[in-house]
């Protein structure tokens, strides 16, 4: 027969755990209401006790936070912003006047201005906007310029197998692009 928490009815457990006030004396423990259940490995369920949830209060708090952040953005009370941008199959944490080195070729000429649309997260000192998974284009705008298009230093790809006279040497040169992040702008459009 397997032990289960049905041995102690759940309503009793809940009432004792929530309503009880325990005086921490060594020998005798008094409770306001309900049974006394000594603490053992099976006296309470193995999942953690969750805090009481009030949906309306939670929604009120959420709305207050959103209004606060909206007010901050409208009044422009933020300093330097940073953004997490998905570009060239990589994620970059980026601020203004940043240089990014990308290890591949981009279809844009030197001096072209680029807008990075896939923004995952924007943040300042007092607030962050976390995208699920992306922050919408109406809220953020990240602009960059292509500065340089070069090649990497010549990397050596060498294969060698001992005792078999097998040796191959190949020189790999990757194309690189350098971008400068010009600006990150946020607009107050949160609901």
């Amino acid at each position, binding site marked *: 027969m397997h032990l289960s928490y*049905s041995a102690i009815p*759940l309503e009793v457990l*809940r009432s004792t755990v929530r309503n009880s006030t325990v005086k921490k004396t060594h020998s005798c423990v008094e409770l306001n209401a309900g049974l006394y259940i000594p603490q053992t490995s099976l006296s309470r369920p193995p*999942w*953690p006790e*969750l*805090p009481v*949830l009030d949906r309306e209060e939670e929604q009120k708090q959420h709305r207050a936070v959103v209004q606060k952040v909206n007010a901050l953005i409208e009044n422009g009370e933020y300093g330097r912003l*940073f953004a*997490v941008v998905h570009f060239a199959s990589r*994620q970059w*944490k980026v601020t203004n006047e940043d240089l990014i080195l990308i290890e591949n070729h981009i279809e844009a000429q030197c001096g072209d201005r680029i807008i990075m649309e896939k923004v*995952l*997260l924007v*943040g300042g*000192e007092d607030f*962050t906007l*976390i*995208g*699920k*998974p992306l922050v919408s284009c109406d809220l953020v705008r990240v602009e960059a310029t292509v500065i340089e298009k070069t090649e990497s230093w010549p*990397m*050596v*790809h*060498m*294969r*060698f197998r001992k005792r078999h006279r097998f*040796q191959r*040497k190949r020189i790999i040169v990757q194309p690189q692009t350098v971008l400068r992040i010009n600006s990150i702008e946020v607009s107050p459009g949160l609901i």
Partner: protein
Amino acid sequence: MVFLTLPCWIRSRGPDRYWKVQELLKNARHFRGRKNRCYKLAVRTVCRAFVYATKARKVKRRSMRTLWISRIAAASREHGLKYPALIHNLVKSSVQLNRRILSDLAITEPRTFQALATLARARQQEGLRAALGDGTEPTAPEQPNPRTLLQLQQNQDLQPEMY
């Protein structure tokens, strides 16, 4: 072919041996001992160095990822969450930040990381609440009677198939 005198046997063995040797030795100049000067010793060591570099470029990606994971685990434990809980709940909340960015945020943007940790904890508690449900004991679902299933099947066979 008629070689009548000795000087006619002299041929050029290749004019650029010196430069080929120097090209290899330049990769060995930072080594210790005779292998940074002597060609015969340098050849073997330079080959091994190139092979180690090639393999290390692949291993670097793995080791960087383990480093990021350990950093994120440490930062999330500061906020009372474990690494698997954080990652799983962020994925369930459809936040697609990768481990490199999470470790960078944990280092340079502690408030943002705290916000992510609270988001993950809220999602975790929501999941626990959904799993617990009302707190009533779960009842077994009604097993379909095999006799009724057979009858339904027979009825379906008897009905004319409309096309």
